[in-house]
């Protein structure tokens, strides 16, 4: 809805620019975009991640010097959490995301473990392993599918039309898990190895931010972004061991 209004506005700007009127975009957006940064952390004891035995898939096992661990709670030093999706759940939608999201199957893992994308944003799914994978995003709102990718097959081209948190598994390697977080906005970020996230290019205004962790659920908070300013928003999840 918001986007449609923007397009109408843009059309109006173009028409009026053609008509020689002084109204144009830069004049309207006289303020500089701001950003939001923050850290995701946890209190309590997070569940123990377990080493994954990939012995049955030697071409993958040999890619890892130390065993790969399960990734459902990616606890990092300083009680921070990686792989938490932070997104604008109320506020500016942002421009439509057009850059292609790359999702890789490498070393019998999904890389990245979690990817956030916008509805209709193109995604390419690669298999860079010497073994067949069968990627199975278990969507409920969007059409569900699973596709085999033998080694050397070209990437799959995928888009999702509706927002949804989609768990992804491999039908061949049952330790392989990930998430497609399909959002109806482009302002999203996944916390990095230090538990930090940042959302850039936000027009000044009020925002509701939501942080989502696959085991601990969601948290929200209100943030106000000033012109050209960087607002802080930290989230703390309560970890449970079991």
């Amino acid at each position: 809805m918001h986007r449609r209004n923007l397009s109408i506005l843009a059309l109006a700007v173009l028409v009026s620019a053609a008509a020689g009127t002084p109204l144009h975009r830069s004049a309207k957006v006289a303020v500089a975009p701001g950003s939001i940064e923050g850290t995701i952390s946890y209190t309590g004891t997070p569940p123990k991640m377990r080493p994954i035995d990939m012995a049955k898939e030697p071409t993958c096992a040999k890619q890892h010097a130390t065993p790969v661990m399960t990734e459902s709670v990616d606890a990092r030093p300083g009680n921070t959490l990686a792989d938490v999706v932070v997104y604008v759940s109320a506020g500016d939608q942002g421009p439509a995301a057009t850059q292609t999201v790359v999702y890789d199957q490498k070393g019998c893992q999904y890389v990245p473990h979690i990817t956030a994308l916008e509805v209709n944003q193109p995604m390419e799914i690669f298999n860079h392993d010497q073994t067949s994978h069968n990627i199975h995003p278990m969507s409920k709102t969007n059409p569900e599918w699973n596709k085999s990718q033998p080694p050397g097959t070209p990437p799959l081209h995928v888009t999702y039309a509706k927002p949804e948190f989609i768990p992804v598994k491999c039908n061949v390697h049952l330790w392989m898990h990930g998430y497609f977080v399909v959002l109806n906005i482009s302002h999203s970020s996944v916390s990095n190895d230090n538990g930090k996230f940042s959302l850039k290019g936000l027009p000044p205004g009020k925002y509701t931010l939501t942080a989502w962790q696959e085991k601990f659920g969601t948290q929200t908070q209100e943030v106000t972004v000033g012109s050209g300013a960087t607002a802080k928003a930290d989230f703390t999840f309560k970890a449970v061991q079991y």
Partner: protein
Amino acid sequence: MTPSSGRHEGTIVGRIFAILVTIITLISTGIFLSRIWWLPPDISQHGSAIDRQIDETMVSSGVLFVLAQLVLAFFVWRFADTNDQRKIKTFPGGATPMVVVAIILVGAEILALTLVGSRVWASIYVTAPDPNSLTIDVQAEQFAYYFRYPGPDGKFGALHPELIDASSGNFVGLDPANDTAARDDIVSASLVIPVNRPILLQLHAKDVSHAFYVPELRIQQDFVPGLVIPVHFTAIRTARTEIVCTQLCGLGHYNMRAYLEVKTDADFQKWLNEQSAQ
């Protein structure tokens, strides 16, 4: 083409066929006798009985096979001349008694092999496991095996299929939050066992039928959804070998395998301790 040249050609074709049948019979018998393609060396206590039984079956069916092929070759050679003047001899009473006699003969052979062989099979599969066996719970699923050890407390935690969550590594559905016996359970993707100790496997399937096949152990047993199937054995040599699924179970069937590691007692304890620490 004159009748005489037709007879001549028939004789040649018949003799070539007789020679080919003889050659194929001798080569295939030679392959079996030389054991070029044979089972891998046995590492189990009961395996020698199976091997003896396989030998007996192979010898008895092999002798019959060689005799039948050579008789076939002889008759083709002897009667390849298409001499239509000869009186045709038939089995007494015609085709029906011949088929009945053949069925009885072949049936008797198969029945005899079954009765003799089932004694060996039963001595392995239909006997009680050693009470001091190390019990390991085995879950087969598309397309992997998971082996569960009771951990230091010696007790298996209860299984709650609704709690299965592969993304967290809870492959079998343990409930460590409420079930203290489950907290120290060790779940491994490889079957690691101590040598010379009786092992009791409890096989159960999460989804469809699978199989547990280790040629070196001379064991092949299906998993059946809804059943817990016990299998017991003792490995008498340290080894590292493959466990494969031999029951077509879906897309990734070809890729369904795990490793069996037979370790010395000390190495096994070390492995257990490492697993407990994880």
